[in-house]
C-alpha cells in the first residue's frame, strides 16, 4: 500500500508497474480438476421459457461453444474437456446475473472441430461466433456492432494496464508482438477500420511499433490509462459527461485480446490461457498463466498462499477491482489481476461525514467537486448530484476514496448513484 508521505503538500503520485524488456515467462498453472465458466445470461431453472441446450452430464470438448438456448447471443467457450457437473445462478456486482457452468475436467483433452474448420478465412461472423470469450475479452462494440449507435471509427489497443501493479497487457506487447501484429491485421480486415492506435508506455514504444498500429505514448502515472483520459490526452477528444467513448466512435480493446485474436487464427484453435498478475499479501506481483475458468483456490494453492478468514480477494487491481466472496470464483477473460490482502492490512471505510478537507479536489482528474457531490450522494439526491455537481463526469478512478480523510467510500456512492439513475431511467422508458 502506498502511504501518505510526510510532506503532505505533495500529492500522491502512483506510477504504473513497468514491465522489464525481457520479462520472465508467466508461471503456468496446470488445468484444474473442476472449473466454472460464467455465462453472461441469467439462469432460472424454474421459470425458463425456452428449452435449455445444456444439462448436467453433458460431455464437452475444449474450444466448444456453450450457449444456454439455441437462439441466445451470449455464449462461453469451454477451456477444457470434461462433463458439466452443475448449472447454477450467480449474482455479481450490482445485480448482474450469470449462469455458472461447473465442469468436471477429464484427463484427456479433445479439441472441438468447429472453429479449426473456419480458420482459413477470418471473417467478422467467425470472430463473433467463436472468439467473444478469448483471453482479454473482445468488446461487444467490435464483434457485434449495434446498427443504431455511432459506427466505430477508431480502435484503441491498450498496451498499458488499467490499474497499478499489473503487467498483463504490457506482457502481450513485449512477448507476443507477432501475435499482436497478426491480430491488428485481422482487426483491420474484419471491421474495415484502418484507424488503429496502440497506447503504450514510453519504454515499450519499439515493441508497440512492431504491431503495425499507430503508437501513442501514455503517461505512466495513474489514472492516465483509463479510457476517458486516453481519449483526452492521446486523441484530443473529451468525452462529454454521460457519454461513453463508444458514443464518439472509439472502441477500446486490450493488447491481450488482440494477441489472442492473432493466436487463434495462427494456431487454428481458440486460446484458453489467460495471463494475469497475482498480487500477493506482501504487495509483490507475479505474472501467472491459467486457463479461463480456473478457480482462484487453485492459484493460491500453487503459490502456497493461505487465504484466511476475513482476508480480501480482489479481481482486478487495487484501485478499480472488485472483491469476491468465494475461493471458487473463476478466472474470467477480462481478469487482469487477482489480488489478496491480509485482514490485518485492510483499509476499511467509515461512516464519518465529509469534513471538507479538500484532499479530493486537486487529485480528481475529472475536476469534480467531490466534497459537495458526496453530500448529495450520501442522502440519495442523485439527480441533484448530476445537475449540479457533475456526477456523470466521474471516470471512476477511485483516487478520491484513496485520499479521503474521513474514509468515505466515495467511489461506491458514485457507482451506486449511476446504477440507481440507470434503473430509474430504464423503468421510465418501459412505462411510457
Amino acid at each position: 500500500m502506498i502511504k501518505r508521505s510526510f510532506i503532505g503538500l505533495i500529492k500522491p503520485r502512483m506510477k504504473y508497474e513497468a514491465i522489464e524488456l525481457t520479462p520472465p515467462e508467466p508461471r503456468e498453472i496446470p488445468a484444474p480438476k473442476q472449473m466454472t465458466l460464467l455465462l453472461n445470461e441469467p439462469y432460472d431453472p424454474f421459470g425458463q421459457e425456452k428449452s435449455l441446450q445444456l444439462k448436467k452430464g453433458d460431455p464437452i470438448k475444449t474450444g466448444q461453444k456453450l450457449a444456454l438456448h439455441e437462439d441466445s447471443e451470449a455464449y462461453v467457450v469451454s477451456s477444457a474437456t470434461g462433463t458439466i457437473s452443475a448449472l447454477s445462478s450467480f449474482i455479481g456486482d450490482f445485480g448482474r446475473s450469470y449462469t455458472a457452468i461447473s465442469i468436471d475436467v477429464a484427463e484427456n483433452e479433445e479439441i472441438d472441430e468447429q472453429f479449426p474448420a473456419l480458420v482459413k478465412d477470418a471473417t467478422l461472423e467467425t470472430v463473433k461466433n467463436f472468439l467473444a470469450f478469448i483471453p482479454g475479452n473482445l468488446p461487444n462494440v467490435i464483434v457485434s456492432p449495434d446498427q443504431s449507435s455511432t459506427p466505430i471509427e477508431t480502435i484503441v489497443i491498450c498496451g498499458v494496464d488499467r490499474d497499478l501493479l499489473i503487467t498483463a497487457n504490457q506482457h502481450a506487447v513485449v512477448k507476443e508482438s507477432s501475435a499482436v501484429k497478426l491480430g491488428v491485421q485481422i482487426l483491420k480486415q474484419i471491421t474495415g477500420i484502418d484507424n488503429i492506435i496502440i497506447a503504450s508506455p514510453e519504454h515499450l514504444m519499439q515493441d508497440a511499433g512492431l504491431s503495425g498500429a499507430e503508437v501513442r505514448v501514455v503517461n505512466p502515472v495513474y489514472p492516465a490509462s483509463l479510457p476517458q483520459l486516453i481519449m483526452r490526452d492521446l486523441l484530443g477528444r473529451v468525452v462529454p459527461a454521460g457519454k461513453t467513448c463508444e458514443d464518439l466512435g472509439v472502441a477500446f480493446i486490450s493488447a491481450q485480446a488482440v494477441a489472442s485474436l492473432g493466436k487463434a487464427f495462427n494456431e487454428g484453435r481458440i486460446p484458453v490461457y489467460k495471463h494475469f498478475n497475482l498480487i500477493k499479501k506482501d504487495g509483490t506481483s507475479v505474472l501467472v498463466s491459467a486457463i479461463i475458468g480456473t478457480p482462484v483456490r487453485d492459484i493460491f494453492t500453487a503459490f502456497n498462499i493461505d487465504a484466511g478468514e476475513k482476508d480480501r480477494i480482489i479481481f482486478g487491481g487495487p484501485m478499480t477491482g472488485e472483491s469476491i466472496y468465494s475461493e471458487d470464483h473463476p478466472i474470467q477473460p477480462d481478469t487482469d489481476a487477482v489480488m489478496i490482502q491480509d485482514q490485518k492490512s485492510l483499509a476499511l471505510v467509515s461512516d464519518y461525514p465529509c469534513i471538507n478537507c479538500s484532499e479530493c479536489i486537486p487529485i480528481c482528474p475529472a475536476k469534480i467537486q467531490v466534497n459537495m457531490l458526496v453530500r448529495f450522494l450520501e442522502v440519495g439526491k442523485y439527480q441533484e448530484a448530476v445537475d449540479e455537481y457533475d456526477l456523470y463526469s466521474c471516470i471512476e478512478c477511485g483516487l478520491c476514496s484513496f485520499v479521503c480523510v474521513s474514509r468515505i467510500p466515495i467511489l461506491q456512492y458514485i457507482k451506486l448513484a449511476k446504477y440507481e439513475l440507470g434503473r430509474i431511467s430504464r423503468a421510465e422508458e418501459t412505462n411510457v
Partner: protein
Amino acid sequence: MFEQKKFTVSHAPFWHVGSSVSARSYNIIFAALPAVLFGVFTYGMPAVGVVALSVSSAITWEIAFNKIARRPPSIGDGNAAMIGLLLAMLLPATAPWWLLITGTFVAVIIGKQIYGGIGANPFNPVLVSLAILTLSWKNFLDFNEVLVNYDFSYPMAYPLASLKHFGVFAISNLKPAALLMGRQSGGIGAIFGLGLILGGIYLIIRGYIRWEISISFLAGVWVTALLFNMVDPAHYAGPVFHLLTGYTLIGAFFLATEDSSSPVNFIPMLIYGAGAGMLTVLIRNIGAFVDGVVFAILVANLVNPLVDKIRPKALGKVI
C-alpha cells in the same frame, strides 16, 4: 457451503493513503503547542488553568451532546480538543472559569454540533464563540484591563488598543523583533509570533491546512495595511505591525484555515483569504473593534459557499 471461509467484501479502491480525521486534529494541536507553551511560560499557572479547563470542557460538551443526540461518541477525532485549545489560545490568562465553560459550550454546541457535527458547521466554531464572548462580556476580554497585574520588562499595553486609542505614536517603541518573540500582551497562544509561524509552516508542509488561505490572508493584511500607511502614516500603523499583533498570525494559520468553513478551490481560497485579511485591517483601522480578525474571518466564512462556486469545469461538462 456452510463451512465456506468468509472473506471481506467491499468496494474499490482497496488501498488508502492512511490519513485520518484524528491525525489531522492532533497535528494541528501539535503545531499549536509552541505558541501555547510560550504563553504558559509567560503567564504561569493561570494560563495552564485556562488551557486545561477549556480543552476538557470542550470535550465534555461534545460527549454530552453525543449522549443527548444519541449519536456515537465523536470525541476520538480530536476536533473538540482542538476547538478547546484554539479558544484558550485566544483568551487572556485571567479568563474566569465560567467564561471558559460558556465559551466552549457556544463553540462546540452552537458553533458545531447543532449544524450536524464536524464538517457541517458554516462558521469557525472557535470564532463564533469568541465573537459571542466579546459582545457579551467585553470587559473580560479587554487585555489592558485583565492583564493589569502582570508586570514584565516590556510594555504591557495591548498594542492594538494603544494604536486605536492613542495613535501611531503610542506604538512607536514596539520593535517587530520583540513582537515576533512574543514580548507583547495578548491572548495565551496569540502572542508568540515565531511559534505560530513555525506551527503554520509545519501544517502547510504536512498538508493539513491549505497554504493558499494562509498566504492570501497575510497578503491581504499586508497590502491593506500598507495602503492605509502610505496614505496617512501619522494615523495608520505599518503592515509589519498589523502582521505581528493581535490575532493576525493565529488567524492566518489556525482560524481562517478551518476545514468546514473555508473554500476548497484555488481561486476561491485566494479570494476568501485576501478578503478576510483586508477586512481585518479595515475593522482595525476604521471600525469599532480593536482587533478585526474574529469578525473578518466570520464574514469570510459567510461568503465561503458563494465564492466556492467559482470552480474549474468538470471533465466533459457540456455547458
